[in-house]
């Protein structure tokens, strides 16, 4: 443990130590009059002026200490190094801690979950595994823990045999990690079927875009033939519902084709921000799409650009939805291409064999976070102040009365 000062110039306040010294040099006892009837047996002998003497030594000492502590507080002292060196064991939330305790002798260690905030294993509830989309990635948690712990604290990580939410790279840490793989009971086999279902699309069009509607309807019919098992197949009319632009948007449908030139109305924008996916007309004015990524291209160049807008997505066609401008409209794969535009982007692969994901050693060590001493110093100052007041008031009040 080392003490250091964040603002050493604050020690200049130590010059204030002169004040109590001067105060105690002043001979105030000669100013007070003592009633003394036996005066005729007393000799006059004034205190010699040459000899400088401090009066009330204890009070002077407390005052000096008080000022020194205040100056130290201004200098912002911090303490490096943590006295607690007990080893840590972190357990991935999908692993049963009882199983982990069977393979690891960690009685002296502190047991924590490998989750946000690193809650203790025995105290906290098991962190929910399901909230996968919001929780930080596995490697990110490892790096945070590595940065948080003191340099030489031993770390044991208990992971399931298959890790979900891994990065593309093996994590690189500052310390050697005891990497224990425990067979896990439940690996969530999430099958994302939504991307393979036929999208339900509502179309809102301006009157001069009516020529494009037949290609969209054709795509809807094609989807009906391609995804016969989809639950929406029972009502083919609902697959692509066409209405003029003045009709209100359906809040339940997630996909929209907006064939209206000009800026987006506020209602449509709100609907997209709330989580919808919109395919916009080529003349739609959306500032967010100025340099957006190309999501669909053919030999003639980019066909559509897409970007996120709030919780939803917008995709704008680069050309008019007419065979003259877009020859691909007449190709057999147009329905599939259109379906791909509406489908959610595939998540990045995040599942890895735990043995292959053992962290490497060699990251640059993190700067240690010092602990501020200000609260303790403030408590000390308060105590010193109370003592000083008691010393200064008590005897003087008694002698004055």
């Amino acid at each position, binding site marked *: 443990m080392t003490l250091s000062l964040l603002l050493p110039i604050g020690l200049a306040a130590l010059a204030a130590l002169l004040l109590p010294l001067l105060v105690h040099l002043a001979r105030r006892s000669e100013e007070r009059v003592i009633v003394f009837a*036996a005066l005729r047996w007393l000799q006059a002998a004034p205190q010699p002026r040459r000899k400088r003497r401090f009066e009330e030594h204890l009070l002077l000492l407390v005052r000096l200490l008080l000022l020194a502590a205040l100056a130290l507080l201004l200098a912002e002292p911090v303490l490096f190094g943590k006295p607690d060196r007990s080893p840590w064991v972190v357990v991935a939330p999908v692993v049963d801690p009882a199983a982990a305790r069977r393979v690891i002798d960690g009685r002296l260690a502190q047991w924590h979950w490998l989750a946000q905030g690193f809650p203790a294993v025995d105290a906290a509830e098991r962190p929910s595994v399901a909230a996968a989309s919001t929780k930080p990635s596995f490697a990110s948690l490892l790096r945070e823990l590595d940065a948080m712990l003191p340099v030489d604290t031993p770390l044991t990580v208990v992971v399931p045999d298959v890790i979900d939410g891994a990065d593309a790279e093996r994590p690189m840490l500052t310390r050697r990690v005891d990497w224990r793989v425990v067979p896990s009971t439940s690996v969530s086999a999430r099958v994302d079927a939504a991307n393979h279902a036929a999208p339900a699309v509502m179309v809102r069009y301006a009157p001069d875009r009516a020529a494009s509607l037949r290609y969209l309807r054709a795509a809807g019919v094609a989807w009906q033939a391609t995804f016969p098992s989809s639950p929406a197949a029972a009502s083919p009319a609902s697959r692509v519902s066409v209405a003029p632009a003045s009709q209100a948007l359906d809040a339940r449908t997630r996909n929209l084709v907006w064939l209206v030139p000009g800026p987006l109305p506020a209602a449509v924008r709100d609907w997209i921000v709330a989580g919808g996916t919109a395919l916009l007309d080529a003349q739609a004015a959306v500032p967010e799409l100025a340099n957006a990524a190309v999501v669909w291209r053919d030999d003639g160049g980019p066909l559509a650009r897409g970007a996120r807008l709030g919780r939803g997505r917008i995709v704008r066609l680069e050309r008019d939805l007419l065979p003259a401008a877009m020859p691909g409209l007449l190709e057999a794969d147009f329905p599939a291409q259109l379906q791909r535009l509406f489908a959610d982007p595939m998540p990045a692969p995040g599942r890895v064999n735990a043995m292959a994901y053992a962290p490497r050693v060699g990251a640059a060590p993190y700067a240690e976070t010092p602990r501020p001493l200000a609260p303790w110093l403030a408590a000390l100052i308060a105590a010193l102040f109370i003592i000083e007041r008691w010393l200064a008031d008590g005897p003087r009040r008694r002698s004055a009365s």
Partner: protein
Amino acid sequence: MPSPPTASTDFIPPHVRARLKDLQLIARQAAGVQGFGLHRSASRGAGLEFSQYRAYEPGDELRQVDWKLYARSDRFFVREAERDSPLDVWLLIDTTASMSQGDAARPGWSRLDAAKALAACLIELALRQGDRFGLAAIGNGKLRITGIGAGPRQRDRCLLELQGLVATGAWPDETRLRPLWEYVGARTLVVSLSDAFDEGVPRLAERLAAARREVLSVQLLTVEERDFPFHGGHRFRDPETGDELLSDGDSVREGFVARFAAARAALASRLAASGIRHVEYVLDEPLDLPLRRLFKAKAGA
């Protein structure tokens, strides 16, 4: 004798009051005057304690004649016994400004407070013995007298007078003290409660003693006068003259303590030469200690 709670409870702390039980006011000279009391008196007469035989004189009561002695000697003798009489006690309290001095270590306990408490103790003792007592407060150039009397009402009157005493001014000259001689008769017990720093105090005591009053003197001293616990420079002021003196506590302590002790010894020997019993009382001592020194030794003899 049931006594209502009075102001005396303010003067005497309970533990001191408990220790007063075995104390007794005792006069060295026979001083009783009239009535029946606890003190030996000069007058002979009917009583319990045999004193002497004397020859029969016309006018003596026949029942006082010792008939057995008549049978042996064929002459009339009269048995005489000592009469025990009550005592007159006068309390002289110095209320000059120097009596207001106390100690910094115990504020609110001045010489005058101690004198009041001692006076209240003496009044309690006198009341218990049936003695008569009176109070004379001398200070601020005046003499205040509460006349002599006995009983609880006199006690309350004296305590009320004690309550009102304030220490100011200087010791009066002798002409102002002349009324005192009209009140304090011969063969009375006079207790002086004073710091005796004024020359008038020992002189009055000497004159009273010379005029056949039995005088007891209690000199009240503060702890600071005994120990002189001052460090560094201080400004000392005499409360009566107003003189001020700047002095360094550490350098003058030894000289002061020695000179002050010599002055006290000189005072004690001067008073002893006049037959005055003299004790010192320092303010941190128990309140009954001076009374014990004055009366207890006599009680054993």
